[in-house]
């Protein structure tokens, strides 16, 4: 396989986790809820998915279990912030801390076990094309899933009535409430959808990329996905693009380590995190631009009738 094609292939594969998580977070952020618990949901989902796949031998069940675990944690978060009006920052953070501990706790029995390497699904005909074939058309199904999901979510946001309602609630929940829409239930649904996608993202690591379980497996990818939603200025297509970009940085870093570049591997490991900081700083530089694109009620509680 051509080297550049291989690089693109692995960048897409490693960006898929970030894409799934960022797309999920986009849904709840567009509805006005900021969930800093992404990392915790991904970790718990990763271990749930791994356990399910290990015992049943089915990847599909693994992904389903992970999505359910992510959604369940998100529901707890949603009930707290949406119905009890707790601080979204503190609650999300608490969810991340809890998720880290809980995944480590239940994952103890899973450490040291591993699944067989995943098979890639080559799309017939297309995958035989020179260069583009190996780069784009031979992947794990979830990679195509993330791409399809981007289209679906973009269509939902911009082409459906429900998507319009979701975005309207994210901008200002009062009018939607006045029109009789159940604002809090819709927000809860959005939070659960976000959690389910973060769950898929976690399982993609423990079932496909790794495929194994260790404590703290996600290594901050949940937080990078949160930064990606800002980078994407809350647009699905840009989130996908950003995820592949970051996937590329991660792959590049690993490739450099493998080639034995004369830089400490520890310094190379920093690269994705530093890239996140730099990109975040550059995109946020124009405060007016961010304010214009950010859902206006993001992070603010909504108390109907008060």
């Amino acid at each position, binding site marked *: 396989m051509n080297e550049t094609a291989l690089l693109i292939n692995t960048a897409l594969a490693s960006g898929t986790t970030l894409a799934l998580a960022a797309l999920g977070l986009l849904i709840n952020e567009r509805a006005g809820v900021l969930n*800093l618990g992404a990392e*915790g949901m991904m970790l718990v989902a990763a271990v749930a998915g791994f356990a399910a796949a290990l015992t049943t031998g089915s990847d599909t069940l693994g992904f389903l279990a992970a999505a359910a675990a992510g959604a369940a944690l998100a529901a*707890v978060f949603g009930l*707290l912030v949406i*119905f*009890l*009006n*707790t*601080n979204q*920052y*503190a*609650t999300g*953070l*608490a*969810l991340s*801390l*809890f*998720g*880290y*501990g*809980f995944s*480590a*706790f239940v994952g*103890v029995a899973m450490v040291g076990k591993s699944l067989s390497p995943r098979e890639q699904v080559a799309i017939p005909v297309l995958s035989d094309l020179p260069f583009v074939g190996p780069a784009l058309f031979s992947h794990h199904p979830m990679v195509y899933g993330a791409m399809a999901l981007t289209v679906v979510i973009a269509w939902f946001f911009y082409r459906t009535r429900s998507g319009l309602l979701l975005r309207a609630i994210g901008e200002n929940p009062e009018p939607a409430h006045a029109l009789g829409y159940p604002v809090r239930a819709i927000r809860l649904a959005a939070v659960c959808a976000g959690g389910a996608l973060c769950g898929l993202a976690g399982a993609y690591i423990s079932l496909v990329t790794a495929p194994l379980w260790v*404590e703290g497996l996600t*290594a*901050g990818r949940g*937080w*990078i996905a*949160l*930064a990606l939603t*800002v980078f994407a200025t809350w647009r699905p297509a840009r989130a996908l693009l950003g995820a592949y970009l970051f996937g590329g940085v991660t792959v590049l870093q690993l490739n450099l380590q493998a080639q034995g570049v004369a830089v*400490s591997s*520890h*310094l190379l*490991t*920093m690269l994705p*995190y*530093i890239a*996140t*900081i730099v990109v*975040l*700083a*550059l995109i*946020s*530089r*124009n*405060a007016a631009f*961010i304010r214009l694109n950010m859902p206006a009620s993001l992070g603010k509680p909504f*108390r109907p009738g*008060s």
Partner: protein
Amino acid sequence: MLKLEARAAPSQLMTVASPLLALVLTAVVAALILAAIGQDPLAGLRVLFVEPLTGRRQVSEVLLKATPLIVIALGLAVCYRANVWNIGAEGQFLLGCVGAGGMAIWLTTQGIVLPRALGVTVVLIAGMLGGLLWAAVVALLRDRFNANEILVSLMLVYVAQQIVNALVFGPWKDPQGFNMPQSVMFHASLHLPPMLERTRLHVGFAIALVLAALVTLFLFRSFRGFQLQVGGLAPAAARYAGFSARSALWTGLLLSGALAGLAGGMEVAGPIKQVTPYLSTGLGFTAIIVCFVGRLHPLGIVAAGVLLSLMLIGGELAQSRLGLPNAMASVLQGLLLLILLACDTFIHQRLRWTPSRKASA
């Protein structure tokens, strides 16, 4: 139906009762978890919450571990009261270890022997500077580039851990250390003096108590502390009064960074006495929980620091005695914070029973 409604004034009772209620509920969940994995819940709870308080050595270990938690949380309290969300205290703690450790290694390898008071002070100041610089990166990016401080400070935790690794696997590795990734042991003149005979408890705990008093004065008796809190509670009012939001941002972050760095310095010059890749076990994150359980108040933080430390030591005991996974303590910590936040709802709101409209119609 049951309805949440706003209280006319925050409930004083709930402000104090909420952490206690959360603690009880956490203990109940802990008992359920213990029962679920086939342990005797009461015996398990005893190991987790009571055993660490039996005996002089155990208590000294609880206070030892509470020291960095209290010091870090004091800084975070100032930060959070200013509505600045520094969640990367872990990274600032690690850079504090790097600053203090670097200074101590340099003094040790150069053979410079300072009087103990001076040597320890120099090392701790180096630690504070390390943490301060790491937090300054966050402040700078927020101030100049409007970058979200939550995400930046968190990303810097991962970078900080790699800096520690790069140093101890590289230039700081002890040449006589059998190729182990650890630095030389610091010279005895750089060790924090003990506070209690025949225990590992060092003067850092006394420093933490003094700092709690100082932060109390700063928050509640100084104009600067007042400005900071107004900025956090009512940004528009603060702007109208001419209080600078930028200066609140810098003050909050630099102070919390310096204190986290000091905590790091006290850990390396206290119980660890060298630099290793395993300097922190998430103390910077536990300190966030300490901060909330302590109601962002210095006195509460001292109590909460001891409580969370108790849970950490209890977790270690449960691992060695009952064979529980060592993650039990972090599960309970996370739960404690989640439950606490739920209980805190009832400080500003109350539940009221209102007859449903359908029934009256």
